[in-house]
């Protein structure tokens, strides 16, 4: 029984890894920028839920409003702009930045029942 | 004398019809929940003024009744009354089933029922609501242990201890439920110390009414003997409890009427031109109080099971109405934000509330869940004594 579980989980992780072997594509700030924002991409892939949860508590409860691990930052940088309409796609739309992975592993994202899914009006691009 | 317990057969057409009927109600309730959660609460009659509507009425009604349904078991184990002993198992079962139904409604009416896990892991120990969650869970555990001790012969000797702790726990539980309102200092309608004891008495009456109905129905439908001694005893007890509820209601309202700051809300409930006054006099007092007492105590109707059944149903209907008045009526009356001043604009007035069908279906579904749980469990486990004829329940009875 356990062996099956291990194999299953192994597959699950492989499929995540496969999906992201290629570098970021699409028309987002992150894909276009040459700057590396995350120190270690595999860490952020694996750990981003923990980072986000930790940061949200610090921001909401303690008023710590740094850019590091802010969800707004993720959305601003990773939302794709439509080439033709020049409008942003929601990060949780099908095949967009968040859902791409999440739909593969069927983990629902709860963030966007409240948070906005595209950069806000005041966002002026990466520093 | 040894009492023999036996499962019901549960193969008759009637049994399946009952299960099917209850199943339909439960499916309807789930449909209603999907509708409300998918769209959001705007499809209900609830609003920012009436934040707790019909689902809470049913949920609290069932939760209150649940603790009362344990009465029969408590009387036998705590007060050592032999007559009630054979019915202890059923009493525990009904109690758990009603609680499950009530909690189901409560959870499914949350804005985010998907976050139930948060409610179970994040506790604010200052919150009476959080304490209630603990009390409800504890009640399940304690009553389950109590039932097991009654079932397991080796454990029988501990069952009265377990019964005592279940009895204590349920008193605390109902006090806790009543205190949900007691902590709302800003709302005039709930500003009464009597709330908690009143809830306890209400629980006695509603729980016993449920128990009587379930007992009589299951014995009738399975053709098992149920003697007059038991029926009359339970009927008398129900009459006493109903009278006690009425007494507490009278004390509460009279007390409030003479307390200047609460006179407004009292007049609104008792003599206002809103639906709550009609509900109070015709529903709660006459339908749910006076008529059942007449049915129970009228000498010509003694040992008459149909009228006792009717009285129990009326007590339950009156109970739902009573909780409706407390919960919805209490919110409809505006808070006194500026004592000595009149609010001309922006807040105030009696808040309107029209329950939607979905809310009612969810509430009824909760009752159905409780009943279907009882139906199945008496089929699979020996909850019911084979006979409750007079010579079984009361060996000294002379007929």
């Amino acid at each position, binding site marked *: 029984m356990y062996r099956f579980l291990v194999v299953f989980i192994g597959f699950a992780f492989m499929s995540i890894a496969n999906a992201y072997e290629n570098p970021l594509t699409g028309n987002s700030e992150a894909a276009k920028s040459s700057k590396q924002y995350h120190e270690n991409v595999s860490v952020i892939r694996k750990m981003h839920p923990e980072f986000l949860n930790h940061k949200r508590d610090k921001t909401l409860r303690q008023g*710590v409003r740094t850019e590091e691990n802010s969800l707004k930052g993720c959305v601003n940088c990773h939302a794709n702009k439509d080439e033709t309409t020049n409008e942003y796609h929601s990060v949780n739309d099908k095949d967009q930045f968040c859902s791409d992975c999440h739909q593969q592993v069927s983990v629902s994202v709860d963030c966007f029942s*409240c948070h906005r899914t595209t950069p806000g009006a005041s966002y002026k691009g990466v520093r | 004398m040894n009492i023999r317990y036996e499962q019901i057969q549960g193969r008759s057409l009637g049994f399946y019809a009952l299960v099917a009927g209850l199943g339909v109600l439960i499916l309807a309730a789930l449909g209603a929940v999907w509708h409300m959660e998918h769209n959001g609460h705007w499809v209900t009659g609830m609003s*920012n*003024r009436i934040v707790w509507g019909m689902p809470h009425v049913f949920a609290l009604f069932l939760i209150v009744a649940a603790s009362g349904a344990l009465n029969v078991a408590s009387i036998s184990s705590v007060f050592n009354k032999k007559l009630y002993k054979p019915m202890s198992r059923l009493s525990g079962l009904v109690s758990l089933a009603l609680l499950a139904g009530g909690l189901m409604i409560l959870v499914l009416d949350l804005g985010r029922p998907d976050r139930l896990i948060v409610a179970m892991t994040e506790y604010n120990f200052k*919150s009476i609501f959080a304490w209630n969650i603990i009390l409800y869970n504890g009640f399940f555990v304690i009553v389950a242990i109590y039932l097991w001790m009654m079932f397991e012969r080796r454990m029988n000797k501990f069952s009265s201890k377990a019964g005592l702790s279940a009895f204590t726990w349920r008193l605390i539980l109902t006090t806790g439920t009543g205190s949900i309102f007691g*902590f709302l200092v800003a709302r005039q309608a709930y500003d009464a110390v009597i709330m908690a004891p009143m809830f306890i008495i209400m629980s006695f009456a509603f729980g016993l009414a449920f128990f009587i109905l379930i007992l009589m129905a299951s014995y009738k439908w399975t053709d098992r003997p149920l003697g007059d001694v038991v029926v009359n005893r339970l009927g008398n007890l129900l009459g006493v409890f109903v009278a006690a509820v009425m007494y507490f209601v009278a004390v509460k309202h009279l007390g409030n009427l003479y307390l200047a700051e609460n006179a407004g809300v009292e007049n609104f409930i008792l003599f206002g031109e809103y639906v709550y006054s009609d509900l109070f006099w015709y529903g709660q007092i006459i339908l749910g109080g006076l008529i059942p007492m007449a049915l129970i105590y009228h000498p010509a109707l003694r040992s008459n099971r149909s009228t006792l059944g009717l009285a129990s149903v009326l007590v339950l209907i009156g109970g739902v109405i009573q909780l409706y008045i407390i919960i919805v009526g209490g919110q409809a009356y505006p808070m006194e*934000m500026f004592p000595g001043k009149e609010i*001309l604009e922006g*807040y105030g007035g009696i808040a309107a509330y029209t329950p939607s069908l979905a809310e009612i279906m969810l509430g009824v579904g909760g009752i159905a869940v409780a009943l279907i749980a009882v139906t199945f469990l008496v089929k699979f486990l020996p909850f019911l004594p084979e006979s409750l004829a007079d010579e079984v329940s009361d060996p000294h009875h002379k007929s």
Partner: protein
Amino acid sequence: MSKTLNRRDFIKTTTATTASVATIASGITLTTFAANANENPVTNEKRWGMLIDTNRLTEANIDGMVTACKKEHGWGSEAHSTGDQKSNWIRKLKVKDKATGKVTSLPLMCQHCEEPPCVDVCPTNASMKREDGIVLVDRHLCIGCRYCMMACPYDARSFVHEDLTDQKEDMPRGKGTVESCTLCVHKVDKGEAPACVASVNSDAVIFGDLYDANSKINQTLKKVQSAQIRADLNLNTGVRYSGI
């Protein structure tokens, strides 16, 4: 007046000056925080508050405050909710004194109580008070039980009755959770004044640190008569009114 302020505000008058907090007047940002202010957790050395002078506040001012709040946070335009189902963080109230017949208009929002009943009753700790006195709903934990709405004496809270999209970037809001005035915490943390305060171009609404003896709100509170709504409940509200 000093009695209604917290014990702490005079103890720390000597240290307060080091934080380089200048007076905050409505509409103008005068506070200069240290560059790293947002990196450090807020502390209970501050308590944010507001003083509303109903004698100087016109009805148009109040309407402007409501509009500014809506614009900042995006509430009130829910498509399906009707009447009392719509969110309402700040409202205009008109009250008439029964004895004198005097009619007063005032804005009413979450009063940011020091002893907030909404926080006490919340089963999951979703309702919470920051160290600096701002009361918020942590929607990550809110299960939508609405007990806090039952408990709030000011009817200050709203339940989101429907799905929302395209929220304001600084104000996540969503179906099934409870919300209320945040005192524009995202602005306050940046050293700015709340949107409603900024919308009023006079000293009719003063925002600032109640504890800071040099702050305008502290000094004004020492001078003028002010009141808390439902002061009898002893909640020690952060929002104060003069002229009622």
